[in-house]
């Protein structure tokens, strides 16, 4: 009917008749009042889409594809302002990451994974606790944060427990004057049992839940026990006598292995996450890597590697959480270096002079970062990017050397105890509450980071 009543639908004449025809159509069929009842309420894009889509559908049916329909469509399009509009966009696309603000890289920036936004690192400690009578002795290890979120610190002859979840403090034990002071504390992996090393060469095992002493390990060392680390049920102790002893805490004759390699005090002891390798550092400037599988109780165990590059006592030791055979070690006042080792080959991968004695080292569990604590002159904590070893930030506040550091179980907070007799808490490895929404907003890119543990 449409094209029948207007046989002359050629282009020159099509304008007026079509207008009429459109009116007819509206009145007879669709009963539309106007094309644009309210411009503001219309989505032109949607309309445009429908027009285009409608046109395509009609094409499929040759009977309805008439010149008048075509012209009607054009008319509609024109009324809808489409031909008079220009759609523009910036050539430069908004960045998906900080570096991508370049036109050349604009098409490709959609592919690479976005960089994680720069984390805000508070420059001051989140909390400061008093730590009176903290022994200012570089060779001791008086701070540990257990898996049940309880921090243990030895102050003089007493071991205190500070529960990080509610901030409550309790006293675990005060040893007799003649046996003290406490020279090392170390939580067992269960977060319930804790080993307390003493100046009199004994080690006490405590059940922190029941506040009860379970046993005393004696007969191994001839002098104070300044360093300890757990490997499941094996408690490894390092003494001033240069001995390293593996104690099986379950059995009566607890000494299962003795590692002889240091000829001065052992001040750093750390098992690798796999439990296969033990790193030990001593006042003899030596760093040893011991292999668990090479140990035997009847013959003296040979070290896997003896690393002699440090020029001062090696106390700060930290196994890399994301690379099994990577160890970071820090030297004392005469050395001031952080060194990185491949513990399979014994190769020194990198050495960085920090300008100050390195008292302790901690890896960030979520990022490739390393935190070191120092003494004179700044008494600072330095956060390093690994492997570039670019300083990310320095945290100051302690007024004397920062002897010990411990990391919360969630890996975010670091506690540092210094010779200024304060215990400070730093949110240096990212706030746990800030870490959560990020994966929600961008689950893909960050999930890989969240899985590193």
């Amino acid at each position, binding site marked *: 009917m449409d094209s029948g009543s207007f046989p002359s639908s050629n282009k020159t004449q099509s304008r007026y008749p079509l207008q009429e025809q459109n009116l007819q159509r509206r009145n007879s069929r669709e009963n539309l009042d106007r094309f644009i009842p309210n*411009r*503001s*309420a219309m*989505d*032109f*894009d*949607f309309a*445009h*889409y429908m027009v285009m889509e409608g046109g395509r559908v009609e094409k499929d049916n040759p009977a309805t594809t008439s010149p008048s329909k075509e012209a009607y469509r054009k008319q509609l399009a024109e009324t809808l*302002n489409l*031909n*008079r*509009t*220009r*759609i*523009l*966009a*910036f*050539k*430069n*696309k*908004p*960045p*998906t*990451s*900080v*570096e*991508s*603000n370049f036109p050349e890289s604009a098409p490709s920036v*959609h592919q690479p994974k*976005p960089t994680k*936004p720069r*984390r*805000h690192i508070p420059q001051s400690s989140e909390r400061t606790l008093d730590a009176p009578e903290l022994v200012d002795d570089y060779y001791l290890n008086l701070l540990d944060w257990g898996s049940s979120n309880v921090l243990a610190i030895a102050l003089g002859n007493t071991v205190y427990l500070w529960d990080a979840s509610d901030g409550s403090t309790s006293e675990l034990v005060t040893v007799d004057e003649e046996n003290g002071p406490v020279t090392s504390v170390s939580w067992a992996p269960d977060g319930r049992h804790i080993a307390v090393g003493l100046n009199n060469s004994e080690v006490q095992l405590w059940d922190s839940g029941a506040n009860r002493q379970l046993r005393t390990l004696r007969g191994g060392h001839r002098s104070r026990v300044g360093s300890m680390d757990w490997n499941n049920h094996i408690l490894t102790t390092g003494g001033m006598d240069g001995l390293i002893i593996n104690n099986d805490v379950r059995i009566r004759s607890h000494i299962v292995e003795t590692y002889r390699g240091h000829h001065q005090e052992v001040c750093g002891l750390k098992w690798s996450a796999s439990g296969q390798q033990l790193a030990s550092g001593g006042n003899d400037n030596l760093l040893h890597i011991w292999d668990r599988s090479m140990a035997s109780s009847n013959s003296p165990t040979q070290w896997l590697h003896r690393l002699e590059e440090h020029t001062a006592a090696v106390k700060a030791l930290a196994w890399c959480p994301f690379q099994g055979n990577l160890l970071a070690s820090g030297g004392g006042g005469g050395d001031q270096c952080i060194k990185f080792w491949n513990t399979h080959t014994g190769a020194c991968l990198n050495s960085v002079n920090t300008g100050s004695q390195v008292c302790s080292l901690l890896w960030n569990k979520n990022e490739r970062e390393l935190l070191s604590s120092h003494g004179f002159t700044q008494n600072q904590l330095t956060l390093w990017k690994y492997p570039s070893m670019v300083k990310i930030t320095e945290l100051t506040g302690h007024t004397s050397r920062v002897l010990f550091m411990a990391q919360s179980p969630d890996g975010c907070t670091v506690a540092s105890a210094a010779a200024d007799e304060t215990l400070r808490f730093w949110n240096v490895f990212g706030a746990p509450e*800030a870490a959560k*929404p*990020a994966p*929600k*907003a*961008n*689950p*893909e*890119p960050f999930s890989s980071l969240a899985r590193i543990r």
Partner: protein
Amino acid sequence: MASRTIAKDIITLRGSAAIVSEFFGYAANSILYNRGVYPEESFVKVKKYGLPMLLTQDEGVKTFIANLTAQLSEWLEAGKLQRVVLVIMSKATSEVLERWNFSIETDKEVVEKGISREKSDKEIMREIQAIMRQIASSITYLPCLDEPCIFDVLAYTDKDVAVPFTWIESDPKLIANPQMVKLHSFDTKIHKVDTLVSYKNDEEGEE
């Protein structure tokens, strides 16, 4: 006294363009924040329109939006801007997921004759505030953007506008069969801005 109040409520083309382009800046920031296009940590809170508004601290995004609002302001003053669309796309597939559509009607008489209109700042702010509140509450009904997204801004201008050096012509980046929600409008008496968000219709069988 009387003359002072009158002077205060007079709005010029230039002033109107400034208000509208500033509105786009804040609206874009708010959308990017509320829709999680950029991580929460990259925004800081400021007070604007009597509301806490969030502004990105990401230098790249900041520059992009600053350049955008500067250009929009120019077009608004010339009365040549018809519409601004903020498009949110999937980063992986570039599929358009949301279109935030701001249509602009310009009082041509003001542009041609250079006259001014009367409307109080307060009233305009109140209208903008309502839109901003709606943008912030849009997350309650918009489908979750559970993949990394990118955004782009399209400007619909009159045909006689010369394409600036830094701009290119674009396709409209439409969504097929979208759901649409119209938000509040605001009107400076020179520029009237209508806001509408259209988004991908996930529940196709439901209607």
